[in-house]
């Protein structure tokens, strides 16, 4: 991204470097200390307007925070908060909880919303059902739930629930990040009814958040692998001097560059206020496709040491393998993109392609 974000990147890196890297273990669900320092510096509210309780700044600043934390495998719900859940609340005219408290988004599972008359004014709902694959379930203090509306009404209800006291299952993704279910037995929530199109935008923003994380982690994995190939000697020379290894690293670089270019373009489409569903779908699918190549070759070049817990590589490759199918699987977003590009018929593919980003 542009150099305007250098300062925020540097600040996040400073904070990251003051913490033990790669904090996730079987016993720790997240990096509470890192979160506290980020919150203290106002970085958990970047890109969210000050009048809503955020720290202000541009979308590009929020993206820079998310990218830097993703590359550093920071185990904190910043992507969810800054790029998905927070903006969704604001766009639906709902109050943002204190950004110092972690916020996440739940878009999967079967949760029904019914309007409630609890005397707390309009926009109050009751949520019932189970939200599945919830990022940072058990960690996030508040959850923005995309729930099914009452019968006969189209679209979705975007509702904010206080997660304290809610039953949570203990599932993790491949990297050990919490991805449990949240059981909502008549939980009270403030919320707003969304059109189907806007509900689609919320899902797309979440997918784009993951794509931003994927792009950053892919870049970092490439950098680690290039560095390792320069340091590791076999047959009396660095691995990177072998043409076979150079071909693999160049292939990785091609994938990473392609992902970065498309993710940047999708973020810019969002900045311009354009419909982000197809740009986000494309960015997410492209980033996921690159994971196949980049994670495989990174491990191949690192050899056996990269296959161990003691080496750092797995902290990002396991995230890559998970993130590509989170916030909507790669199959889901491929079909969304395919269907969307054909919206104007079989002859409309090319005009659609030139309009996406």
């Amino acid at each position, binding site marked *: *991204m*542009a150099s305007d974000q250098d300062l925020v990147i540097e600040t996040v890196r400073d904070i990251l470097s003051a913490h033990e890297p790669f904090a996730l273990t079987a016993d720790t669900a997240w990096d509470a200390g890192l979160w506290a320092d980020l919150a203290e510096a106002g970085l958990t509210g970047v890109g969210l307007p000050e009048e809503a309780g955020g720290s202000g700044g541009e979308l590009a600043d929020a993206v820079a925070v998310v990218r830097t934390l993703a590359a550093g495998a920071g185990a904190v719900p910043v992507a969810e908060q800054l790029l998905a859940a927070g903006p969704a609340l604001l766009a639906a005219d709902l109050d943002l909880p204190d950004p110092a408290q972690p916020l996440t988004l739940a878009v999967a599972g079967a949760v029904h919303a019914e309007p409630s008359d609890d005397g707390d004014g309009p926009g109050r709902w009751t949520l019932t059902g189970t939200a599945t694959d919830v990022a940072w379930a058990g960690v996030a203090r508040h959850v923005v739930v995309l729930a099914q509306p009452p019968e006969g009404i189209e679209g979705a209800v975007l509702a904010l629930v206080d997660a304290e006291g809610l039953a949570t299952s203990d599932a993790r993704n491949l990297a050990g990040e919490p991805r449990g279910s949240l059981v909502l037995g008549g939980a009270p929530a403030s919320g707003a009814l969304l059109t189907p199109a806007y509900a689609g935008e919320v899902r797309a923003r979440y997918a784009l958040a993951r794509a931003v994380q994927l792009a950053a982690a892919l*870049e970092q994995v490439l950098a680690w692998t*290039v560095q390792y*190939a*320069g340091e590791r000697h076999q047959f009396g020379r660095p691995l*990177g*001097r072998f*043409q076979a290894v*150079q*071909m693999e*690293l*160049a*292939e990785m*670089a*091609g*994938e990473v*560059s*392609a*992902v*970065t*270019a*498309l993710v*940047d*373009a999708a973020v*810019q489409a969002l900045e311009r206020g354009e419909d982000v569903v197809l740009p986000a*779908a*494309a*960015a997410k*699918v*492209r980033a996921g*496709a690159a994971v196949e190549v980049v994670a495989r070759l990174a491990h191949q070049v690192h050899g056996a040491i990269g296959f161990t817990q003691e080496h750092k590589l797995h902290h990002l490759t396991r995230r890559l393998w998970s993130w590509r199918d989170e916030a909507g699987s790669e*199959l889901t*977003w*491929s*079909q*969304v*993109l*395919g*269907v969307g*590009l*054909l919206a104007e*018929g*079989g*002859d409309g*593919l*090319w*005009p659609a*392609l*030139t309009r*996406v*980003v």
Partner: protein
Amino acid sequence: MSSPLTLAPAPPSEAAEEVRAQVREFLAGELAAGSFTTHVDTWLSGVDPAFSRKLGERGWLGMTWPKQYGGHERSAMERYAVTEELLAAGAPVAAHWIADRQSGPNLLRYGTEAQRQAILPRIAAGECYFVIGMSEPDSGSDLASIRTRAARNGDGDWVVNGAKVWTSNAHHSHYAITLVRTGPPGEGPRGKHQGLTQLLVDLSLPGISINPIRILDGGHHFNEVVFDDAVVPGDMLLGEEGAGWHQVTAELAFERSGPERFLSTYPLLAEFGRRACDTGDGAQLAALGRLSARLLALRQLSLRIAAALDRGELPDIPAALVKDVGTTFEADVVDEVRRVVDVTPSLDSPDPLGRALAEAQLHAPGYTLRGGTNEILRGIVARGLGLR
């Protein structure tokens, strides 16, 4: 993120979108009038001088060149939009493609005033066509090992002997910018880059013969161009004697970065899109989504290069990267499509998808060879990564 591999994002260009709409309208009219039919890989196989002249009349050739040479002083982003539309429609652009893409820019950069005035306006009019005189029977990836020689005779003219191959459409072309050895190589591993020179060779000269080399589908696009004591006038030296390697490298930045490095098989993808639209099949729609995501990323990469050209940069390393990723995609379209559609490829198929698949398959080996093999390109990218 400022490595030699990454470029700044391209700013949106309203002018490019305007000319895009004009080209699209023109192409729809031409298709409706039956002036051409869509085919795969038409920047190699679709020679149609009448069509090239129509593009010239509309100001869509030599777009970025100064007006004094018949150009139109438009941006590389506008040219990008025009070339992309032509390729997506599978239009017959092969006659002028090389001249417009790289020979003209090469002349602008290194040509004499007389050479520019004599040739550039004719290229921009769609009337003058070029071939690339680089590869030889014994020199493919190892370009600096070429053996075609040129020596000055008593009149100061160049006497050329040797042979060039894979010269696309030499039998329809007027000139070949020909890389020849005019001096001895120097010392050291890069010494053979010395003593190379580019000549602007009129293909109608005595002593030049052009022999067809047919590709897999029987098409005659490639040729062998043989120089047997061909006398090239002394003033047809291009640029500097002995600077041929440097000039060729600059030329390759133009050759490697354009949308023809990922749209050669687009007509197949378009046909596949029609099929997926008709069937509504989930696997086909997902495959279309996956392929489209790759194409959209390639567009962004290529647009970044167009924007860099507009800034006056010559991004040869990113260009190599785009060509590697793009040509791999071109070939992958074939296999991704046939995995999810029940179709048999044949040039005689009554099904347009079967025909497009056949054309794309039979041209496929070329995508990752022409303009520098992907192995060579990855070597350049590895250099950009600091590995060599």
